[in-house]
């Protein structure tokens, strides 16, 4: 146990070679448990799955290397193109909506209102309940006959027909997005609320003295402070949404006519026939897009840091 300060904080005026080395050893030691887990339980399975996607593996038979055949087959299926489009739509539209509602609500909850604390906790409810449960409830709400939403419409006399929210091409994706946003926006709201706490009140005062109105203050003071947290939340939430299975599976199973088909559901269908190579190819096909997303956002974050 060296009683010396960490190397990066110290001017190197003594022979520090041993210290730096010891420091590095400590660094490795501390990060090793996490690394072992990630290599053993994420990296290895990940590369293994990529390997499988290039083979004809089915359950109980290792198969053999078939190159890009699985991907070629996948690209020929009618569902594939729609799946790409739907996944992008789902991620982008729900991100935009979550940003809008999350930020709006965070700004309101940052004001000095009565029962603010209670409401801050209340907002977290959709996020706190199991996703499985949340999306089952939404399916019940969207049920054409006797579902909550159509009941409200008929009891208030707005619409008496049995609107098939999840069964029509025009409404299926919006309905799924609504449920996804409902469940996901609390995370955005609370993250923004947290970031808003870090804005020094003096900055607002200064802007006020300079004669900036509310909108200008938001643009010149609030937004710059939020930029980084927005990037991070967009990144995390996009990954969650792109990988989310329960929302679609429980509400539409990708239907009607693939109007809500997304990658995780397509992969699940692939598993039904036990063709592991094919199912892995579906998931692998999505990885480049996620990599680009992560690369973009981490680069942006790093640029902000400098």
């Amino acid at each position, binding site marked *: 146990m060296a009683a010396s300060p960490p190397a990066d904080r110290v001017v190197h005026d003594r022979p520090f070679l041993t210290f730096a080395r010891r420091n590095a050893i400590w660094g490795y030691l501390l990060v090793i448990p996490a690394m072992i887990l990630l*290599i053993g339980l994420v990296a290895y399975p990940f590369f293994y799955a990529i390997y499988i996607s290039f083979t004809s593996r089915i*359950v109980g038979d290792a198969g053999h290397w078939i190159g890009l055949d699985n991907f070629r087959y996948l690209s020929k299926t009618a569902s594939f193109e729609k799946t790409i489009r739907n996944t992008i739509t789902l991620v982008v539209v729900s991100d935009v909506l979550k940003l809008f509602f999350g930020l709006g609500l965070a700004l309101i909850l940052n004001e000095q209102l009565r029962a603010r604390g209670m409401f801050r906790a209340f907002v977290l409810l959709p996020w706190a309940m199991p996703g499985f449960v949340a999306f089952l409830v939404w399916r019940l709400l969207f049920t054409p006959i006797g579902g909550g939403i159509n009941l409200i419409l008929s009891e208030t006399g707005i619409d008496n027909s049995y609107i*098939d929210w999840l069964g029509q*091409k025009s409404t299926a994706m919006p309905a799924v997005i609504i449920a996804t946003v409902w469940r996901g926006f609390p995370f955005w709201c609370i993250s923004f609320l947290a970031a808003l706490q870090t804005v020094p009140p003096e900055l607002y005062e200064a802007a006020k003295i300079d004669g900036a109105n509310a909108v200008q203050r938001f643009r010149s003071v609030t937004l710059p402070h939020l930029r980084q947290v927005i990037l991070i939340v967009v990144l995390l939430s996009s990954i969650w949404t792109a990988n989310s299975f329960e929302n679609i599976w429980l509400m539409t199973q990708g239907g*009607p006519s693939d109007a809500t088909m997304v990658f995780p559901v397509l992969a699940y269908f692939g598993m039904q026939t036990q063709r592991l190579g094919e199912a892995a190819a579906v998931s692998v096909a999505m990885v480049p897009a996620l990599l680009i997303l992560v690369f973009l956002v981490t680069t942006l974050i790093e640029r902000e840091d400098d």
Partner: protein
Amino acid sequence: MTHISRRRFLGTTTAAAGAAALGSTRLTEMLSAKAAPAVLQEKAKLTYWGGLIFSDDANNLLTDTINQWGEDNNVDTEVVMINQNETNQKVSAAVESGTMPDALDMGLDLQLLLTNTGQLMELDDLYTKIGDAHGGWYASVDAAAKLAGATTGIPFGPSGNLLFSRQDVLEAAGLTPPPATWQDVRDWSKQAQKPPLFGMGLALSNVGDGNLQMSVLQSYGGRIADDAGTTVTLDTPETRTYMEWVTGAFADGLFPPGATTWDGAGDNTAYLAGQAIFIANTGSVHLAAAEDDPELDANTNFAALPAGPVMQVSPINPNVRAIPTSTEDPDTAKALIEFLANKDFMEQYLNVAIYGPALNEYASFAIFQEPVHAGLLNLVEHGTAPGAPDVYNTAYADFSANFIVPKMVQRVVVDGLSVDDAIKEAQEQGQLIYDKYK
């Protein structure tokens, strides 16, 4: 507490990384030796995965019976009831990781896949032995049992869809159920439905129920593929006739809203909610209605599926018990399966489970006088083999799992495609699947 679990945890994860990186069998052996303490036991061990069905009584009876058998025969039994919706995933993971049970229940599609990759034991002797002991197998069950290419499963409870009709509603409209043809179903629906009560509670979605449309298509003379089971033959006038029947009915508003995205419970829920006159169901709705809504149950007529213009297609699914090749003690597993075919147990079991008789001996049970079970008995006597008139092979199973036929219907009723274009697309997509198995 925290400390111990952490250390143990670190130990296991280190091992995980090691095993993963090296794929070392020695390490695996080491670990297994550690995990299973070397307590020598004479007692045989047996794990059984039963299919969880909608009857607590049936599930409990199966569990208790197997455990009792274990006690009587000095076998340590562990019975786990697996939710059938997840059987495929669980079995995939279990095969890949070598953790299959000693025996399990499954349906035909899974049996076919596992037989092809040599995961299931051939049980010809046992099959013959049980058949001989209980008056012989029903012909339809026998045909279905051999579809997998080898006798790898012992049928215990053939099931299939029956047509449920609302007797009260139809009679009020001057109609007497059951309808004889699918055209009747459509015509009667139009005549008798009063929204929110709709006529045709048939799923058009990407679930197992949606594939009932394959049977309807076949009853209209359509075929999925040729007799060799290699070339898809969807693009025919017969398919067009079927498509006009189904899309016309949809355009007339005879399907309850939601039918294009129903999950497996969609038709059940619609029927129990009084939103459908007709549904096709294996019987779980009857159990649910008998318990929660006896009035509805009493007003229900149970019959075989109607016929199309060309034939009546009413496939049976021979639910089987199978033994994975990975079991260490096949004899014990065989002994259990043989025991489970005994008359006393099966009589009690069929009283609470909705299955038809697999063996002739069971037909004499009193329960087969009851309407639903009588319908299942009729199904076993007159039903068609799975997939028939098509060839039931892996390509056919893959085709079904991709819901090509229900999707063909969705393309018209959801996306507004023309019938011709939808058929053309289905033909191409179907052939793409069949080509994988050439």
